[in-house]
């Protein structure tokens, strides 16, 4: 069992978590054209919803709890758009205002989570599962399920975007909102659906992050947010497939480098990749100049 393949296994798990999170962020950015800085706290809230269902009162199986929490976070995303971010985005032309509001929302959510659950580290109750040899890698049952969930979600999203009317409308809106609106697409409805998907993906991502890390803390989402940014920017912000590619690249490079240099510098590796991307290809690997500008 070489160190290299062990870290590749970790890299795949991290990439899976990262891909789900990055797509949720990228999807919402593509439609609404502003970054949600509270996304990390959406993840944390989702993780704690799962925790409540799984541990405190209800003792539901972790995977079912995760699904319920994802739906709840989807609803939460819709509400936040309806009552907070949507009105701000419509009222002010300059994106500064809505960016500051999402930044503020992040502070509010983080501190609400802290006041409810405190700063203690918490654990999900889930079966430890046995380790399996997959090729040269060694993965636990839970890690395999996390990867399975991620792949299934990505496949479902790909099918939706490419084959359904909804997906087509979303892609149209992401390319050019005004043009989509004049073509008779109900942009408000699409925005609402997108926020639901983004919130749900954040809920899943937060929970599987908790599962793969083995614990959950209120601030975990906020620190992870930066790794998501690195993946999203690397792929080209707003591009779904770019986000997937970026997630795999960042996930693998941070985990493999962690095996050979000090794992404490994981974040810095992601940041170096981010800066290099910005210097060499500011629109990302797959980003088209036309779409990133609108």
């Amino acid at each position: 069992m070489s160190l290299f393949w062990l870290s590749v296994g970790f890299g795949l798990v991290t990439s899976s978590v990262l891909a789900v999170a990055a797509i949720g962020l990228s999807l919402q950015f593509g439609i609404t054209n502003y970054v949600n800085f509270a996304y990390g706290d959406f993840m944390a809230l989702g993780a704690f919803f799962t925790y409540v269902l799984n541990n405190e009162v209800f003792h539901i199986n972790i995977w079912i709890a995760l699904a319920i929490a994802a739906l709840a976070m989807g609803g939460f995303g819709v509400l936040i758009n309806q009552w907070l971010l949507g009105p701000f985005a419509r009222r002010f032309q300059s994106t500064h205002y809505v960016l500051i509001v999402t930044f503020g929302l992040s502070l509010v959510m983080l501190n609400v989570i802290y006041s409810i659950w405190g700063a203690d580290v918490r654990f999900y109750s889930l079966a430890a599962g046995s380790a399996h040899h997959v090729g040269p890698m060694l993965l636990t049952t839970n890690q395999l399920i996390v990867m399975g969930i991620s792949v299934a979600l990505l496949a479902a999203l790909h099918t939706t975007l490419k084959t359904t009317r909804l997906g087509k409308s979303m892609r149209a809106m992401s390319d050019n909102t005004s043009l989509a609106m004049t073509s008779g697409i109900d942009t408000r409805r699409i925005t609402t659906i997108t926020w639901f998907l983004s919130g749900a993906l954040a809920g899943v991502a937060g929970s599987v992050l908790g599962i793969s890390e083995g614990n959950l803390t209120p601030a975990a989402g906020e620190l992870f947010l930066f790794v998501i940014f690195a993946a999203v920017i690397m792929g080209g912000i707003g591009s779904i497939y770019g986000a997937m590619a970026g997630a795999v690249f960042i996930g693998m490079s941070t985990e493999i480098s962690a095996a050979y240099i000090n794992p404490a510098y994981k974040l810095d590796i992601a940041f170096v990749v981010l800066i290099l991307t910005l210097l060499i290809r500011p629109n990302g690997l797959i980003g088209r100049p036309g779409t990133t500008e609108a």
Partner: protein
Amino acid sequence: MAYYIFTLVFFLFDYFILAMGLNIQYGITGILNFAYIGFVAIGAYVTGVAGLPANVPGQHYILGLGLPFPLNTLLGGLAAMALAVLVALITLRRLRTDYLAIVLISLSLVFYDFCNNYVSLFNGADGLYNVPAPYAKSLGLGVNSFIIFFACLTGVVALIMWFVMHRVLRAPLGRTLRAIRDDHVAAAALGKNTFRMQLKSMMIGSFFAGIGGGLLIQFGGSFNPTAWLPGETFVVFAVLIVGGAGNNVGMFVGALLVETLLIHLPAFLPDIPGHPGLIEYFDLALVGVVLMLMLWFRPQGIVPERLRRSASFGAPERLDEEAGRLDQTAAIAAGVGIEQADHDTGNGR
């Protein structure tokens, strides 16, 4: 009692300085600097290591120059300024607003992570402590009298900084920066080098951040990485928005209302038994809520930026709330596409 009051006075003046620095970057020039607290932290750390003697058992850090008060703080301010040049060179030239915000917020997380892990730089996660209290020994001050002395000293520094900032903002530089904020395409068309101007704005603002940070570490005597997570940047933004972006009087009002009354006054309340930190959590959440309400109901802040008559070429001055629409009008007037004028800040495509 005097201890409490002068602690509040200190934070009022210190955040006045910090808010003035963010104001020239965001309020005047329109750079959404979400890494602001990172510059404060560098100022604080460098002031700390410049003030501490060379070898203190139990702590690891660079420099250790043992410099006296104004020199170590100045060095902190210059260090923050140097960092600003580096950051601006990487980011300002090519990034539009939200990319810039993402990169800056990431930067502030990476600074945090790096200082936390790289112990020999600024003593890692333990942070610096036992930073010398300026003139406490030579004047023979006790804990209480030092607080009073240092609060007054900070007041004097704040007054000087305010005077400097006042002059900068009234100078042609200030007008150019406002022009870039309101319509950088038009400013560039008039022959202004927008990148150089933004760079200057970043440097001046970061110098203020560094000085404010330097005063902070000397007031408390210690500083550790958790004091500068991105949430702290938001507090400075709250000071700026509540007070009124774009003018220094607003910064003072904001510092008084947000930092002094909303954040530091409740900190003196006793903990609720069994719930440590609950008051602080509620308090920070409240700051976020206040900021959102403020942005919705009075986006120009308590003390709005005054209209200036100097721009008499038909380019409308910013009315904050109407800013977007006016920007657009100006852009159309200048014959520039709206999309472009509204969304990019760089010219690197």
